[in-house]
């Protein structure tokens, strides 16, 4: 398996993602600069990491979504390559129109940083198959703008098509229908606010994030 982590100016979980994927799966992980106009050949997984790309200026993820490398990411998505956007990476995917909805400021205005209990709503995706029927997972959130928003019609469609993958048991940020993570309609793009890269071995409080990366490996 071969993976790449995109580095935007202001990303700060890029190295965490690389280490998490390497230790969970043994895959080779390349770091790709946002200004690159080419991705490494033969990728099975592209990760857009957490952080504060472009200082969160204008809107979180807005400028990163227009980076040169993003047109390559779009092409890879069309080819069926798996893409995971974590936290700021989820915001980038929404801003790029690659996932529906948007992330608003947290309902209580506070930056929330803690472990969260998640329901695995859809265990049949290529990102969750490795949980082998488990219904719950624990990961860590760290966000100030993680309040998922979409209009009612879109929310109904996401729920109806099994695109809601993770839901908070105790909604930390006001997200619509407590949604923590969604997949694209074709199923190869996952966006989530919780960090699998901060929960990939027991010493971090949870190893559930490793199962997410291992799921992608198994489906590659």
């Amino acid at each position, binding site marked *: 398996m071969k993976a790449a982590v995109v580095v935007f100016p202001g990303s700060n979980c890029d190295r965490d993602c690389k280490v998490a994927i390497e230790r969970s799966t043994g895959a080779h992980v390349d770091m790709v600069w946002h200004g690159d106009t080419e991705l490494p050949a033969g990728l099975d997984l592209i990760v857009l990491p957490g952080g504060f790309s472009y200082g969160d200026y*204008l809107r979180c993820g807005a*400028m990163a979504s227009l980076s040169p490398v993003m047109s390559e990411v779009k092409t890879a998505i069309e080819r069926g390559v798996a893409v995971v956007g974590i936290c700021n990476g989820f915001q980038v995917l929404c801003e790029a129109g690659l996932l*529906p909805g*948007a992330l*608003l*400021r947290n*309902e209580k205005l506070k930056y929330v940083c803690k472990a969260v209990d998640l329901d695995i709503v859809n265990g049949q995706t290529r990102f969750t198959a490795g949980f082998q029927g488990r219904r719950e997972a624990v990961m860590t959130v760290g966000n100030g703008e993680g309040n998922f928003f979409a209009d009612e019609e879109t929310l109904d469609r996401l729920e109806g098509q099994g695109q809601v993958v993770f839901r908070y048991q105790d909604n930390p940020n*006001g997200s619509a229908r407590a949604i923590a993570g969604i997949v694209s309609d074709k199923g190869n793009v996952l966006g989530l606010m919780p960090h699998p890269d901060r929960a990939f071995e027991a010493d971090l409080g949870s190893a559930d994030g490793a199962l997410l990366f291992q799921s992608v490996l198994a489906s590659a």
Partner: protein
Amino acid sequence: MKATVHVFLKPGVLDVQGKAVENALHGLGWGGVKDVRVGRVLEFETSAADRAAAEAEVKAMCDKLLANPVIESYRVEVG
């Protein structure tokens, strides 16, 4: 030509920042204040030849970058 762009969250999208400001104003005694919305104003110069061209150019900028149509609406002033 000078352009001014006003960006606001759409009606129906919860503006938590506006709510916090509203609560602060209530706390200071302005109890009649309601429906506070906090938006963003951008000002810049464009090299467009005339007003119509400037308007078209700035609207394109809004659609591409300055506003997110999922959650925001915008208003453009030029000249």
